[in-house]
């Protein structure tokens, strides 16, 4: 495919990855970081890598969208758990609303009869 399409997919994924992270963390529950990352990496079509997600998690934590907690482990490094903050929840809702509107618009354009 052309460079233009590649660039378009990159831009699209770039915009959507943050929304995916917020969506993957359950509302009132903690998500285990390793599993969260695996889930995102294994999501078909998202094409995300650990190398991209961990820096994103770090930035979102610094921006106050999520918060993390470390739990010491008997062996190996401490486990990290993520939870949405209030700002994160609000951002997640806003993103959801916007994304729904966006997909509807795209759908209506693709199938005008419906």
């Amino acid at each position, binding site marked *: 495919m052309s460079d233009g399409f590649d660039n378009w997919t*990159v*831009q699209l*994924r*770039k915009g959507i*990855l943050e929304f995916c992270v917020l969506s993957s963390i359950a509302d009132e529950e903690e998500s285990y*970081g*390793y599993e969260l*990352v695996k889930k995102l990496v294994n999501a078909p079509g998202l*094409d*995300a*890598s*650990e*190398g*991209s997600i*961990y*820096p*994103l*998690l*770090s*930035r979102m*934590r*610094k*921006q106050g969208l999520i918060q993390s907690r470390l739990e*010491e*482990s*008997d*062996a*190996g*490094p*401490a*486990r*990290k758990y993520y939870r949405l903050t209030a700002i994160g929840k609000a951002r997640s809702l806003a993103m959801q609303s916007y994304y729904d509107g966006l997909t509807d618009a795209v759908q209506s354009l693709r199938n005008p009869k419906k």
Partner: protein
Amino acid sequence: MKNDHWLTSEARHALDAWEKTHQIHWEREEADPKEVRADLEAHLWHSREGSEAPVTQTQVEMAIDDMSLPSMPVWQSTPSVTEPSRGFWKRCVDSITTPFYFSIWPLLVVLWEIFTGTLASMFFDPLSRFPQIILILFFAILGLFNLFNTFEKSKPRWLTILRGAGVIVAGYWGLLLIPVLLIGSFGYAAGVVYSIGIALIALPLFLLCAMAAAAPLYLTFGFLKRGYPDSHRTPWLLGMLLGLVLLLLVEAPSYITRIGVAQNNPALIRSFGSEETLLSMCYEGKVGRRSFTDTSGFIPNVLISGVIATNSSRKDKSEQHRELYYRVTGRAFNSEEPPHSKLLSLGPRRSPRGVTFDENLGGDGVSARVADLDLATSRLDAHIDSASGLGYWEWTMEFDNSGNRNKEARMQLLLPNEGVVSRLTLWVNGEPQEAAFSSTAKVAKAYKSVAVAERRDPVLVRWVGSDRVLVQCFPVLPEEDMRIRIGITAPLDSDGRLFLPRIIEKNFGISAELDTDIWVQGDLEMSLDGLKGKGAKDMWRETHGSLSARDLMAAHTHVKCSLPEQVTTVWTDDQFSGKKIVRTLLPSNTKTAKQSLVLVVDGSSYFGDWAEAADEAIAALRNAGHEVEVILAANEEVHKNITSLRDFNFSGGQDCIPALEAGLRLASEKKTRHLIWLHGSQPISFKSEEGFLQLLERGFHQIDFSVIDLAGGPNRLLEKAAKRIGIAGNARPSSPDKLSVELAKLIQPRSQKFQWLEQAEAPPEGKKVWDHLARWHVWQQVKEAAIGSTNHDYLAKLAAKYQLVTPVSGAVVLETAQDYKRFDLKQVDGSTTPSIPGVPEPSTALLTLLASLMLFRRKRPCAF
């Protein structure tokens, strides 16, 4: 983290490197690099899925690869993150630590040296040999490739290997140049303390030297700064090993040479050392040239001995090095092109080749090659007279000085067998000036006073022994030529050969393109290999053409004449005594007696070409019934009872004196008549030679000491032996196949004997010949009488009267009539000097007659 051992240290280093590489990207994404690193580490641990084995470097690298792809775009926050503003100095530091300059600086320094030779002229030549230049340029250019990050993404292991090698190679030059860096940095301050004037001039030079010396250190820093990924530790170490090997290949021969010199061990230098370094050492310690020549000489000479070494001790060392050069190579140091800066020779400036300040000016030897002095033209003219069996050469030479100070040209000439210098001319202000002949001491004193002290135009020719003369001309002015002519009278040998004179030692250069123009004429058929021109008119014959001046230096060359039946009686008008000199050929003794002889062979490197022919010649002599004992000087040992010479390995230059002494003792024991030395060049005086000369001089057993000159070249022992004892016979085989014949001729009694008479009247029978007959007769008398005679004054006057350079007399041309008067010398009358007879053309003769008649007609009215 309770347990850190789940990750190997190599794996941890790989993670560190990866974090370092990505840190800036994470910062731009507003992520916390430490947090990201910790998250990734935890991720790796959880990925182990309970395995007990520690995570290895390979697994980390694979995980990194998995985690990094596909790469995500950099997050751009709003507002965009602005880089913290950096200060001026930080920007400067950042700028000069850019890899680009690691290579550019050293490359600029190499260019600077090519154009100016600053380091080479002030301290030492950091890149004196081509392998060094190639090595340092390779790594400087490699640094340049790093700049472009050509291979940075793929991180090939070979690049890491080359970086490791670069650290060692550049680091070596960096360490060598640290003294220069220090001198360059602090030398200015020292200059200010001692002399403000010098300091002002020297300031830019000191700074330039410091900057040049810092370049290889900078290059080393560049290679070190690039570092290496943890996974490339082995390639990095391999690279450093490679660097060491490269340095050893390039530098070890030089250091081994210096060790060999310190241990006086020619075998070590011959096997593992560098002839180039040894030659360079022959010129070390010369005033006016850089004192320290190359990388191997700088540190030991400057830091250890150079600071306290006196000028005289350096000169002594040069003498020792020159002796070693001969012992290692078998050649005279001044027969080679002098060492010069290879780097400077790549640029527009001409690299000086030889000493720029000649400390042997007016001395008694040829000594070191002088920079910027060359033979510019060379011309040989000869006339051969068949009846007298004599030839006369005139060799006209011009020297060119392209330097900026006066130079003295010195050379040793090998004359034709039994030849004598009978004319010397110097062109002063375009006019040919003939020489004054007098005792050697007188002409040498005049030359040294006028040349060395007053720096005006003289030329001096002295006999130094066994058909050898020393020629000195001074001054060859800067950007000017000096022209001289040397006349030589010499006999044809029994085979009708007349050898060409030959330069065997010189202190000037001869271009490979320079030809010697040759014209040989006479009243007989003649030929000279290589000459294409040929002509004949009535009884006159000629051959002419040109031969390479260097080729003429390299071998014994002769004109071959077809001798007609020899005239029994010839005579000439002796213009110096007013009498007739009559030579009558006596009946020859054709009886061949069986002879016993001791043959001493100089087994220096040149002899490899002669060994087979020598074996055959010895076998031929033995087959003819002669008793031959062979003693060989080879590989620093004396070998006796030799049956086959070709089995030996001939290398280096031998001290033949122990072998000659052994030969002399053997000859005494066996009552052998002949001691024959087959020799090449022996350009140095060995300390033991006095013992041999004493044996030869005082020995109770009378012996004929003869020599066969196989290779030409200066021979100090032969010079002394010829002066003190005399040489019974000498031969010059022009090629190995002629050796047998020459050897046989030496041991047979002379087949031709002459009776000489001086009388008032011309003999009733006999043929009148040219006056070279008289000169050659006197030369024979003086040569034989000079050995062991105390009446040198009489002989010197006789030789001077006949205008001859002999063991007791020399020739000098001075600039003015006052100079001659001051030194009690008399310039010869131009009408008495020998010359090449012209071949009269009929038209020329007619013109001469007409001109004479016209003069006669014009003069008549004036008479009245």
